[in-house]
């Protein structure tokens, strides 16, 4: 086998492409350093990614598989990650794209979502004071149920914003939609949640 390290620079051009690329990657200081860096950035996000994966798949085994596959892909592609950019957004995007290739994800992506549907929740808080809403927020079970009833596209955007604290522009990257769509999905998600929460408690509160 040719030892590329012993050859002059111009001779590298004569080597087979695969070998040249492989050698270049090998001699970079990155092979193990990169994976250590990757683990340092990615492992603290494990619980968040799992939680989000569970919301997407609604299944424990599938959520774990999805996160494992996400980590595998992310590690493989880590040398393409631009340092200084948002790693969390980057890996959540991989998670989502991986989800979309699963059976459940394909099903979800086929669901038609009417972004520009006329707003039917315009006066969502009619009949209830904001204080009523505050009282209801103490009821975690009701909130869980309401979140489950939310359309997946709305829930996804809302969870990325409220649970993960990701900015709109990064959510737009993750979901691959314009930032205006992110804004309207989050707003619509909140209004829908209110609508779901209101009738459960009647108007007596």
């Amino acid at each position, binding site marked *: 086998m040719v030892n590329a390290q012993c050859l002059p620079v111009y001779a590298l051009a004569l080597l*087979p492409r*695969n*070998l040249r*690329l*492989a*050698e270049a*990657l*090998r001699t970079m200081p990155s*092979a*193990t350093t990169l*994976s250590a860096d*990757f*683990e340092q950035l990615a*492992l603290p996000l*494990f*619980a968040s990614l*799992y*939680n989000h994966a*569970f*919301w997407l798949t609604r299944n*424990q085994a599938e*959520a*774990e598989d999805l*996160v*494992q596959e996400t*980590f*595998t892909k992310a*590690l*493989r592609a880590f040398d393409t990650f631009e340092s200084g950019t948002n790693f969390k957004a980057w890996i959540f995007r991989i998670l989502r794209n991986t989800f979309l290739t699963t059976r459940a994800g394909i099903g979800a992506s086929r669901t038609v979502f009417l972004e520009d549907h006329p*707003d039917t*929740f*315009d*006066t*969502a*808080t*009619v009949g*209830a004071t*904001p*204080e009523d*809403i*505050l009282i209801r*927020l103490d009821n975690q079970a009701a*909130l*869980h149920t309401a*979140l489950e009833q939310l359309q997946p596209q709305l829930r996804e955007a*809302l*969870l990325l914003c*409220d*649970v993960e*604290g990701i*900015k*709109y522009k990064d959510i737009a990257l993750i979901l691959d939609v314009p930032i205006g769509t992110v*804004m*309207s999905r*989050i*707003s619509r998600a*909140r*209004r829908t*949640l*209110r609508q779901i929460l209101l009738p459960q408690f009647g108007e007596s509160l």
Partner: protein
Amino acid sequence: MNQAPQTNQSTAHLDPDKLSAFIDGELPPAEQQGIEQHLTTCHACTLRVLSATRLKGAIARAGQRFAPPPEALARLTAQLRSQTQAKPQLQVEAKRTARIYSMPSLRPAVWTALAATILLTVSLLGWRQLHQTNTLAAELLDQHLATLSTGAIPQVISTDRHTVKPWFQGRLPFSFNLPDTTALPPDTVLKGADLTYLNGQPAALLFFTIHKHEVSVFLTQRAARPTLTTLPSIRAGFTLQTATTPDLRIIAVSDVNPADLDLLVASLVHAQSPA
């Protein structure tokens, strides 16, 4: 309280998308400031902003709902390590060569990762069992010592097994038999009983005396905690004697002679077997 004017006014003042973006801090600074100024004069909009902020906080808590299984992180780390170790090999070799040689080169890494995971799991299980066993022993001793204090009065004070046994009906999810007075070892007397919780499950606590020594006997369902099989036989000078029947787990705690405690436990075991 009439809500309509308030709602109409607030809707006109702050549209829902703007309100939502405002609480997320996603509006341009000028727009953000404009809204802040509006809020100083508009009570209705302020209430809506407050309500929306609280909703956001509640969603953040409710949305963080699914925790990964404890062993999932170990599985993931093992997978990443094996991937990292396999990566340079795959990069150096050409595709076809890699297909031939990567399997043997992957194997040690995979086996190492697997061995590490198994070792971790086994040691964790061992630690957990030891930890649970020690906790259980401490719990048993604590409860026994509590019964020795003068202020502790059992719920049932009776030497009659026909009074003690029925008292547990409806209080425990299982039943048990008590030996007849004549079937008890010499100078062993049933004093009373109580309902207690041991290791998180309901238990019958029976009080006996053997030659003036106090004895606490705990009866629990056996199936509920199958991993707990070994307890230390002596803890802090007290003897812990364990026995099992197909349905029950019997643990006796006392400072009496271990041989006498054995006899009591044996008589209890014997009482469980069908006549």
